[in-house]
């Protein structure tokens, strides 16, 4: 199985994602944003960073990169597509996921671990997790506050307290309904703001990201 990790100019988490997926045996390859053919890949990741500098609006320019056409084709054909942080923003801008991500409630960048609760296991990201499972995973974003569009989102992760309760106080960025990650209706396209690749090894804040990445590789 081969995972394509899309690299836009300004993307910076591509090697981290490759390292983390590699821990679970995945064969990964970095794909430059001008690529127009992704047929060889069984999984696609849009990693975090600042594609095209996030100028104008996070993801607003990246959606026009040549690689986004085959990404959309793959998504529509049922290939698992995962957007992490900036990748989530790009998937929303590209219309592959509903809604948008806007600046955090406090207008400050947030880099710290947060708790999220698994809301649905019916997605390529959460299949191996348990419903209601609480995970501690680092957040790292400025534009991380989710706002829904016309279509009701299918949340797969929501910000929560350590005990799993969803409260305003546990919502770090003002995200609507506490949404931290969501899937399309088919469950094969998922975006999330926290970085699961930052929670895989013993010295990190937790190893809770493993179950998500393993779900993605196993789906």
């Amino acid at each position, binding site marked *: 199985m081969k995972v394509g990790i899309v690299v836009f*100019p*300004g993307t*910076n*988490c591509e*090697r*981290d994602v490759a*390292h*983390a997926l590699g821990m679970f045996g995945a064969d990964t390859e970095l794909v*430059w944003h001008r690529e127009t053919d992704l047929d060889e890949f069984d999984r696609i990741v849009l990693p975090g*960073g*600042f594609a*095209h*500098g*996030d*100028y104008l609006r996070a993801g607003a320019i990246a959606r026009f990169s040549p690689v986004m056409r085959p990404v959309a084709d793959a998504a529509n054909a049922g290939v698992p597509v995962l957007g992490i942080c900036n990748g989530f923003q790009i998937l929303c801008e590209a219309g592959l996921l509903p809604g948008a991500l806007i600046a955090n409630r406090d207008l*400050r*960048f*947030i*880099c*710290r671990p947060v708790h999220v609760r698994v809301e649905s296991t019916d997605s390529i990201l959460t299949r191996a997790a348990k419903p209601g499972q609480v995970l501690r995973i*680092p957040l*790292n974003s*400025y534009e991380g506050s989710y706002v829904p569009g016309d279509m009701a989102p299918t949340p797969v992760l929501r910000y929560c307290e350590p005990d799993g309760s969803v409260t305003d106080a546990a919502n770090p960025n003002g995200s609507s309904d506490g949404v931290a990650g969501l899937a399309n209706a088919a469950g094969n396209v998922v975006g999330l703001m926290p*970085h699961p*690749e*930052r929670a*895989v*090894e*013993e*010295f*990190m804040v937790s190893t809770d990201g493993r179950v998500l990445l393993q779900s993605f590789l196993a789906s």
Partner: protein
Amino acid sequence: MTTDLHRRLGMTDEEFAQVGAILGRPPADPELAMYSVMWSEHCSYKSSRAFLRDLPTDAPWVVVGPGENAGVVDIGDGWLAAIRIESHNHPSFVEPYQGAATGVGGILRDVFTMGARPIGLWNQIRFGNLDDPHNRYLLGGVVAGIAGYGNAVGVPTLGGEVEFDDTYRGNPLVNVMCLGILRRDQLVLGTAGPPGSIAVLLGSSTGRDGIGGASVLASAGFDEEAATKRPSVQVGDPYEEKKLIEACLELYERDLVVGVQDLGAAGLSCAASEPAARAGAGLDLDLDAVHCRETGMTAPELLMSESQERMMAFVDPAHVEEVLAVAERWEIDASIVGTVRDGDRLRVFHDGRAVADVPASSLAEDAPVLHRPVRRPDWIDELWDEPTRPVGADIGETLVTLLGHPSVGDPSWIYEQFDHMLFLNTVAGPGLDASLVRVRGTSKGLAVSTDGNGALCYLDPRRGGARLVWEAAMNVAVVGAKPLAIVDNLNFGNPENPEVMWQFTETLAGLSDACIDLGVPIVGGNVSFYNETDGADIHPTPVVGMLGLADPMPPLHGAVTPGMAILVCGPAQSTNLSGSAVQTIVHGDHGGRPSDVEPVIGAASIETALRIAHEIDGAVLHDISKGGALVTLAEVLIRANTGASLSPTPYAHAFGEDPHRFLCFVPAKQIEETIRIAVENGTRVELWGATTGASELRIGHTNVVAVEHLAEAWRGAIAGRMAGGANG
């Protein structure tokens, strides 16, 4: 040419005459422009150079010492580490966001110019009283600028320090440090290479921004017209820099360049003259080929512009096409702007005409070396004579006051705005004694600590300077790393004031002695003078950045849990509180003479800390510095949400900051083994108490404070003051 152009460019009449003597004729405007920036204090170190020559800069593991873009040391197994520190004080006062942002951009270029991938950034920031809204505005802007640039450029910010003191109210300090790693065969120097090499300018287009930044902004003091200098501040573009980093790293990997120089202070003037001088060659520079963002720029403007995110690569003619292709792939602009020639002349062409013809080395190396007068201030003896007495205030109340001060309290409001996890190597991140990153694919870790203390160095710059080096060494030792090399950032007042020069020379002596005693070389540094406002100089504020090597990495630090023994290791605390946080912050007392370092005892303490960190399972170590042992302990209890019970503790013992001491938490069954290691090294150990499951800190029989009460003060120190927004 108007007769006083050189003065408006910040040159003295003597310097102007010297240029004439070098050229054998009066300089043309473009020539004068180049000399004015290259000979500025910021670029030429003319006030400090004579004093910097005696610093210890050598050790067997030093690959590149001071004078290049960054210092480089060998960390074994074919790996090198590149390190550099620089100030962006004045731009950050004039325009905090962009000033700090471009400081980050500049320090990154210094490091990836050497062939290294930058793996971490640190910042040392100092402001006036945080209760003043203007200082909140400055802190908010500087932090947002570091975050805005550092996060987007894709290099994690792994630590630093923050201090608030009225001495910085009109002149905040913003120092930034960068660490990079590289394979030995990827090392690149700032040389123009042999004659025939082609100069390729990479990255952003050149505009009128930042003209004279080095000479006008960085090399003069401040007054009420500071805001009018705003156009001299550059504007950063982290996206352009990110692409530039990746493009340059590909050039190094494919061995396509013979030398590289970044364009920072003094822009093209520097990037053309320094590499040519280092290569012992001349250079023809064609300004018409430079890609510009505005039209009609004059030759002096092109030569002085400090537009950011630009690099000059020197390339063998056979590789030029490949270099341009790499630039095209990473979507950065590139233009062929020069050719390296035999001889020593830097010739500049504009509008098809020669507009400058000067010896390249005269720009880079012939700046006047000033021997500024040095005078020991009369007031220093009076200061030293002031008695420093342990004040008999309540220990619990004093502790709460200290924890609630923004120089001591929780800095997470700052560092949670920085990406400190990128690259997945952060074993210990910001907010701790030292940061620790693993070097993947090896058994090694690199630790970094940055330390400054203006109040201490004001009272005794020599002892203060030495203590900073020893403190930084202890900080890397407690995370299991051996001190390897330092960089220093020397922030001082006006060098035309002989008393400032005394502070400067004393500081250098202290730094130097400590480095010799520790066997740690200084591999780079930066001098920032003219930190003054309306004639008042800041406290002398050297900042030390220490790089430590852990090989192998120590076992992971466990958590502090109830039932652990609390040991104080190192010499007994004296009654001297001079220069300590409790004296300056709580009692507003700025006198006395701080305790000196004790090299033999200090070296033993460091060895003990290293051994405990590596050999004792579950041990947690913390350096005792700002706030003293009790503040260090309180921070641990707050983070671990646990209590402690201590033996009765005298006031000075609780808050004194004498050097070479650290706290050690060990599981009860490890006490004996820990003490054995300390005794073996000749380090004094004292059992202070134990952690408990209770939610309180109990000192002796009388003092009891709820940990939650301590936590509230500590957490609110910065976050509480910033809650109303930067302008609140």
